[in-house]
């Protein structure tokens, strides 16, 4: 495949995005990343949406993506992903890909070299960096970064919940999947139910973490592999969905969180977007809960505070240095409030996607905001 020209400015790049579902209780970040890029002054590239399910909203939202395409599930492997991407890119060439989901990252990391040979830019962590922030390895990373974190362990047997109190694991506890979902459980019966649910949905391992009571505050930023944290945006959740996702949140300026973020970025030498989830416990100590290896679903707040991190990511991929990025000073007090809206999709669009695996309407350019 002919390598793409590297001379075009990133504002003219075509960009592929994943994570374009809009599930109300746990939306993917992709549509918000698309909104950030659409809001970028002078951005005129095409956005190519990549999804795993026919009802992922970004496949049909032309204000988000100019075209939508189905991918094989991550479990089918890296080779299947590359084959499908080559198919899509034949008609919808792109200059960069921004993966927005945890489960697909290992496959994208595996084919990063092949994609770069095709002239496609990505900023991805190394496999060992990805592994270092796995939920079951957080205590080691937290120790290296000088950050507190509640104990966590992998479970292979749900009978753990019957005697966990004797081992110092008192209820409530948090039962978590390796990539997705977390539930606070208050009894052995509830814990076993959630454990089985996790296994059925996501497989093994299932993790249990000690529960910390407090306000959840999150930080998102970019890393360029040097250990520097770039463009940090901090947020406190104000309204939560049943799954604990932020429905509303306010930008904050928390020095402790900032310093913890710096230490974690330095410990990881992270490449790409990152989200750090922390809780300030009742004693005032910041506890590291999770590190997500991609943009968060609330990333549109970054645009709201003048730190459009998806745009900054493309600028970094184009060769900009961190000091050259247009990032406003922190703006605490800016609030985001999420809302759901319905999109009308015709039978023809659904059928076309089901048969061809792609959706792209002739009205695409007309409906996209200038």
């Amino acid at each position, binding site marked *: 495949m002919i390598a793409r020209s590297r001379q075009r400015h990133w504002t003219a790049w075509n960009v592929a995005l994943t994570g374009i579902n809009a599930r109300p209780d746990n939306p993917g970040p992709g549509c918000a990343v698309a909104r950030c890029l659409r809001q970028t002054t002078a951005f005129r590239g095409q956005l190519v949406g990549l999804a795993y399910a026919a009802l992922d909203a970004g496949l049909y939202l032309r204000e988000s993506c100019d075209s939508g395409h189905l991918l094989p599930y991550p479990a089918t492997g890296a080779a299947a992903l590359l084959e499908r991407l080559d198919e899509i890119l034949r008609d919808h060439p792109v200059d960069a890909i921004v993966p927005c989901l945890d489960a697909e990252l290992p496959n994208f990391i595996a084919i990063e070299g092949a994609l770069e040979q095709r002239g496609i830019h990505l900023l991805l962590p190394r496999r060992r960096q990805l592994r270092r922030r796995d939920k079951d390895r957080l205590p080691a990373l937290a120790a290296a970064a000088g950050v507190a974190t509640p104990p966590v362990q992998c479970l292979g047997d749900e009978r753990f919940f019957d005697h966990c109190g004797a081992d110092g694991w008192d209820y409530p506890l948090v039962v978590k999947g390796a990539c997705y979902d977390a539930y606070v459980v208050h009894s052995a019966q509830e814990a076993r139910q959630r454990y089985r649910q996790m296994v059925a949905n996501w497989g093994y391992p299932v993790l249990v973490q000690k529960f910390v009571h407090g306000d959840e505050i999150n930080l998102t930023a970019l890393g360029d592999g040097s250990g520097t944290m770039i463009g940090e945006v901090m*947020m*406190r959740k*104000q309204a939560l969905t049943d799954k604990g996702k932020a429905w509303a*949140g306010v*930008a*904050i*300026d*928390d020095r402790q969180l900032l310093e913890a973020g710096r230490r974690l970025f330095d410990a990881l030498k992270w490449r790409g977007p990152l989200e750090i989830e922390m809780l300030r416990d009742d004693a005032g100590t910041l506890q590291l809960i999770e590190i997500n290896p991609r943009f968060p679903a609330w990333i549109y707040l970054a645009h709201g505070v003048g730190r459009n991190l998806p745009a900054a990511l493309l600028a970094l991929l184009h060769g900009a240095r961190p000091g050259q990025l247009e990032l406003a000073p922190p703006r*605490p007090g800016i609030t985001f409030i999420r809302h759901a809206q319905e999109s009308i999709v015709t039978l023809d669009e659904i059928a076309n996607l089901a048969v061809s695996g792609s959706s792209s309407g002739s009205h695409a350019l007309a409906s996209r905001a200038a």
Partner: protein
Amino acid sequence: MEMPALPGERLGALVLNANGHAFDSRTGTSYRFNPPAQVALLMLQDGKSRQAIIETLADLCDQPEAAVEGGVDHLVDQLARYLA
């Protein structure tokens, strides 16, 4: 009478607007301050003493100091709780 110690950095993170809305830029929490409390907050952020605040408010509100000091102490207690 001694005031409870208020953490300076936490006090400084409160941003007050002209309508009495104060935003804690560190925690994202918002508060409402009535007019005398707004004066007291600004004086606290300036490091003024309890007595100075009482005297200022007594003068501004044309009230005896004895009537004012209870309100000042109550405000400081609340701030100490919320900013802890």
